[in-house]
């Protein structure tokens, strides 16, 4: 039994490795695993697998592309039946982006989200956002909304570079 469980573990590890190769279409350095949107993945039968995926934002157009990419990657790995399930609860939070994912974002020029989720009482409170290029906290927000739903637009007043900030939700 122990060896059967160990083999199942190994198989699940292999599935996570496949998902590591599926990149966010808008932020191509970040895998869907780094992003923290894969809620579960399990074999459900011979050559059959189920993946639970959470949307980041309700209206994010990348969600459908991600679902299709996840399915394609698992089919390419030999699974004939792939079910991608939409998991809404508990809702995705930017806190689920992995440490590695945060570092990748920073190197890509996007300031990663802070770790605390915004509360309704702190509606207009804002934590300082460090510039991903020079590290200065002398930054200002240009717009709460950027090129994708998950990003806000900032400018560093120390090194004068504009940059994206992955919003904290």
């Amino acid at each position: 039994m122990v060896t059967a469980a160990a083999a199942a573990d190994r198989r699940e590890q292999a599935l996570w490795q496949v998902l590591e190769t599926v990149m966010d279409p808008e932020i191509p350095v970040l895998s869907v695993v780094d992003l923290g949107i894969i809620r579960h993945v399990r074999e459900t039968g011979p050559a059959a697998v189920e993946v639970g995926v959470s949307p980041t934002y309700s209206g994010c157009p990348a969600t459908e592309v991600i679902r299709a990419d996840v399915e394609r990657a698992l089919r390419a790995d030999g699974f004939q039946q792939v079910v991608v399930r939409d998991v809404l609860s508990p809702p995705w939070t930017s806190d689920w982006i992995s440490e590695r994912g945060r570092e990748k974002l920073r190197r890509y020029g996007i300031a990663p989200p802070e770790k605390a989720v915004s509360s309704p009482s702190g509606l207009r409170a804002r934590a300082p956002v460090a510039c991903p290029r020079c590290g200065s906290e002398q930054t200002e927000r240009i717009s709460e909304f950027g090129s994708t739903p998950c990003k806000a637009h900032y400018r560093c007043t120390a090194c004068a570079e504009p940059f994206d900030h992955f919003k904290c939700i």
Partner: protein
Amino acid sequence: MQSERAGSGGSPGSGSAGGSADGRDAIERCRYILRLADTSLVLGQRLGEWVGHAPALEEDLGLANISLDLIGQARLLLTHAGEVEGAGRDEDQLAFLRDGSDYCNLTLAEQPNGDFGRTIVRQFLIDAWQLEIYEWLQQSKDTRLAEVAAKALKETRYHLRYSAEWLIRLGDGTEESQRRVQQALDELWPFTQELFVADALDEDMAASGIASPLAQLQPRWSARIDEVLREATLQRPADTDYPWHGKRGQHGEHLGYLLAEMQHMQRAYPGAKW
């Protein structure tokens, strides 16, 4: 065109859901969820009209992003409404094949954009309403509705932050910007009566634990509105009677034009896929 009979339970066209007490409950609950869905969808469509026309690129992106969130929320809600109804209608059929009299959005949501200030006033009033509604709905006995609300709430928080910040900037801005947003507020305020006046459906939903008693949410909404208006140096208009009942399907002329544009493709080419 299909026969559209949402809310008229028990008709031959409405599938197996009609007739029994459970069926009537389902149709009522569907109708309630459509009120939330349609408010988000219609407001999202309105904001989409700004794309390419906003006063600055940042606001163009901002309004487009809020629009996307609202349409995303509407899709989740419409899908759920269709499942609750049990007559086989999906999100697309509900969005594109219902006529105006079957739309149950708040009348405020369909009001035309006007200038940027008027759009911000409308947005602020509805954001503050959605914040209270979604916060309460997290404990709804309809567990799927609770899940959708928990997701939507996160987005509503920063929608409200955006609209409140702009309202303060415009209200406490120049003489001209203040004059314009005050006028917009005066004109739109009468529509806010509909936000918290419960009709029989609202009361039924509250009694069965699906939705909040609306009157219970009003003081929190009102306090938040007052706080922002004070900072924006704007005057809160007096409450008036309201003859608008968008949530019951009685709309002004504006909704028809909006739906004509939004539904044109599906009406002209039924079943067409992207």
